[in-house]
């Protein structure tokens, strides 16, 4: 195993992006992701890349739009209120089928909320966010090593499918420091040369990048159908989750990101104590790992969803499990986080284990 270095989540993500060939970053400071623009501002000039501190989140995402159209691997990052501002640009980039990576290190909302970690932007991330029928590939790492790898993969998926990819972390993922092996970038897909970019029409007909579709009259319908076909294909091809101790589990706990790793520790301890518990931790939130849930509804009896929100992924879990099992929820928004103990208590109560039986 290669040597590990100690870095903050925000820095790990930025370094992974640089390793993956990201050469343009535009952003605007917002806690708790400030180390991201700071890191890029130091690092990108070293590799011939460009960092721009934009005047607003709106400008930042539109700079990324331009950079992506010009052919660069481009990225922006923010935290919840800032990502709301970026939604306009994200819709345009999705419509124009340009690649880019957007990170959201979620904080407490709604409104200005607070700067503590939260998961209130799940719906915004996986169900749209901006206007129109579009999807983003949404990635939810639970550790910094996973953040490192997924950030690299994000650029590959963005280029391969020509679409924005979102890294949905939270303030804790952004702020913790963990040892990470900075493995060299290896593309996971073969990326075709970018024959759609704008670089001046030397020796070729001029190109247009646009999202307004007036002609023919049904052109926008056709464009939407094209996008939907692409999304269906992605749903088959990109689908990641961590399944832990699901075999023989009567109760499946599910959580993503930081609560995912907390839930895993609780499940591990419960298993040590002999309880029939397993876990599914979605890693891609869109596409949602439906298959993993379709499988466990045949063997498990109950589901528990844990989120740092008032239940957003909960709805996708119910859809994926076809509401076949009683599903309970543990979660709050605004900066609350679950502890291993509180998840364990919930597991015990759902399995009707008394304090005595645990011992």
């Amino acid at each position, binding site marked *: 195993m290669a040597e590990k270095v*100690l870095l903050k989540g925000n820095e790990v993500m930025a370094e992974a992006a640089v390793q993956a060939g990201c050469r343009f970053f535009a952003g605007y400071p917002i806690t708790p992701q400030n180390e991201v623009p700071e890191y890029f501002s130091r690092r990108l000039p070293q590799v011939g890349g460009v960092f721009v501190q934009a005047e607003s989140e709106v400008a930042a995402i539109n700079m990324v739009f331009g950079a992506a159209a010009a052919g660069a691997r481009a990225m922006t990052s923010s935290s919840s209120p800032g990502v709301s501002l970026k939604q306009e640009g994200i819709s345009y980039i999705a419509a124009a089928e340009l690649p880019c990576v957007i990170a959201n290190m979620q904080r407490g909302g709604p409104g200005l909320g607070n700067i503590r970690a939260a998961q209130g932007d799940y719906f915004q991330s996986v169900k749209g966010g901006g206007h129109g029928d579009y999807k983003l590939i949404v990635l939810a790492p639970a550790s910094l090593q996973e953040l490192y790898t997924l950030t690299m993969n994000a650029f590959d998926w963005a280029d391969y499918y020509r679409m924005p990819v979102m890294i949905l972390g939270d303030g804790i993922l952004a702020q913790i*420091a963990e040892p990470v092996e900075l493995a060299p970038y290896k593309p996971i897909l073969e990326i075709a040369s970018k024959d759609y970019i704008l670089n001046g029409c030397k020796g070729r007909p001029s190109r247009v990048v646009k999202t307004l579709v007036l002609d023919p009259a049904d052109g926008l319908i056709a464009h939407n159908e094209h996008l939907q076909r692409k999304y269906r294909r992605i749903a088959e091809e990109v689908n990641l989750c961590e399944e832990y101790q699901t075999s023989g589990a009567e109760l499946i706990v599910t959580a993503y990101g*930081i609560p995912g790793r907390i839930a895993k520790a609780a499940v591990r301890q419960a298993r040590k104590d002999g309880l029939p518990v397993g876990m599914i931790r979605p890693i891609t939130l869109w596409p949602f790992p439906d298959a993993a849930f379709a499988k466990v509804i045949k063997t498990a009896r109950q589901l528990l969803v844990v989120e740092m929100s008032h239940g957003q992924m909960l709805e996708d879990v119910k859809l994926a499990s076809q509401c076949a099992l009683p599903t309970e929820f543990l979660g709050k928004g605004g900066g609350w*986080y679950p*502890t*291993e103990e509180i998840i364990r208590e919930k597991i015990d109560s759902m399995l009707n284990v008394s304090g005595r039986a645990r011992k």
Partner: protein
Amino acid sequence: MDAQSRKMIIAGFGGQGIVLVGNVIARACVIQKKNVVGMVAYGAEMRGGTAYATVVVSDEEIGSPFVDCPDAAIILNQPSLEKFEADLRPNGLIVLNTSMTQRPPRRADLNRIEVDATQIAHELGNLRVANIVALGAFIAKSNLLRMSSIEQGLSELFSSKNPKLIDLNIQALHAGAERSRFCPLKTEQA
């Protein structure tokens, strides 16, 4: 402090080098190939009052990065003692900088290390190394990490920042180890 204990908090006022102590502990963990998650209280909380960092160390995969109920606390000033004493788990370990704290812990169920960290730092000629003096006391009396790993972590950290400070910090570390007093919990019932 036994090897199982693995969640800790380092607290003081801003400028006492709280983040640095967390960073050195985390680096030592990397050197010893342990899993570690470090975190600094971020945002508005950093300014004024107490600053704190948390570290979770484990040989297993780490679940929660949060430290609600620490096994150990390095307390560098009085407000931090007020704020965090109650959170420690029973039988936990508290390291007190007696130069900056006005009383012993109220709780009777804690192991205690006392070190006159700021005074010792003053004698060493740099008040800023009080944090490392306290760290030395902690490392010497707990068996969580090897002193040599901490030394290596300090060297790594300062070699890029200011190599001239490496010797002073290692001196502070050992001074803390030597001039601290361990007051174990009296376990009558044991």
